[in-house]
């Protein structure tokens, strides 16, 4: 079999790939409004645990695959004004909605009517973006446009050092979280 898969065969693979992703989101409890909002209230770190583990495990593997010429990078351009403004809006929207696009769609399957109404909102958000896109492209995307840069090109450490550093920070953070939750548990028991 020649990789990557292309053409019509590829589309069929999207079903199992998407299903595994959706099932993982549900089993990880990140399809729950309370879990997502309590992450931003710094009371429940489930979202961070899921994301940082996915980034480190996924990143280490993709780094090796890319090194072996088995995976291509797909870097989004660093149009920094658009990215920062988009990120700030996204954070506001994510707390109001209580889900992000992927977890919102998955949450509809759990019976969350608010998630479904938010999906309709997302469709309207997409409409507004499409209609304003020509202006955004000409006036926002051009500001602080740094191209498809990767962190190792910004601060020139080798890829493995970035990934290793990230892993150390993530594991240290997890150990701290687990120790804190263990001590608060024993405090509430005692």
């Amino acid at each position, binding site marked *: 079999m020649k*990789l990557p898969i292309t053409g019509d065969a590829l*589309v069929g693979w999207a*079903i199992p*790939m998407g299903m595994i*992703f*959706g099932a993982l*989101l*549900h*089993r*990880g*409890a990140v399809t729950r*409004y309370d879990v997502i*909002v309590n992450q*931003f*209230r710094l009371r429940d770190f489930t979202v961070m645990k899921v994301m940082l583990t996915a980034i480190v495990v*996924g*990143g280490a*593997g993709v780094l090796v*695959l890319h090194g072996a010429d088995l995976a*291509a990078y*797909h870097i*989004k*351009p660093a149009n920094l004004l*658009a*990215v920062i*403004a*988009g*990120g700030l*809006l*996204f*954070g*506001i929207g*994510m*707390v*109001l*909605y*209580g889900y992000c*696009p992927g*977890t*919102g*769609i998955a949450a509809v*399957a*759990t*019976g969350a*009517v*608010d998630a479904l*109404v938010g*999906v309709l*909102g997302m*469709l*309207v958000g997409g*409409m507004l*973006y*499409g209609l304003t896109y*020509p202006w955004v*492209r000409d006036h926002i995307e051009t500001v602080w446009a740094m191209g498809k*840069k*990767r*962190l190792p090109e910004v601060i020139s450490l080798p*890829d493995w050092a970035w990934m290793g550093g990230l892993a150390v920070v993530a594991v240290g953070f997890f150990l701290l979280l687990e120790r804190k939750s263990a001590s608060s548990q024993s405090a509430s028991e005692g």
Partner: protein
Amino acid sequence: MNATWRPYWVGAGIGVLSWVAFAVMNQPIGISTTVSAASGACLTPLLGAEAVASNAYWKKTPLKLDYPTVFVLGTFLGALASVIWGRAFRWQVVPPVWRSRFGGRAWVRLAAAFLGGVVVLYGARLAGGCTSGHGISGTLQLALSSWVFFLSLFASGVATALALFGRTGK
């Protein structure tokens, strides 16, 4: 079967899924492009097919039955399968944390969810990705744009949560 798995295992699972997504499919995990493509399709009855097809954005990303679109359908189906398997289906309009702060009125919660949905997707398209496309697939490639997005959304989310919920309460 336990309805919830340890977040580390779930994260590792998404990480391994990313290996396959990159190496076998050459298609990083992402959601929001498909949603905005669907928005264009929804506008077709309103504006006419020609106006949508000639729009600069939807010309670039028309709604097609391609890998990213089917992936989003799969995400819904996978969550549904997991919900049925774990007998976890539960109608919810007002989640507990929202209720304890803003009360049980359904229309208030649904209005906020709708507005939040509008803002979240506009932000995702402006930035070029969401928590999946930027937050996982982009950050794991060490993309500058994705890390800037991740930090911006987290800072803004913490500030918004503080403004909406304050420091106290459940």
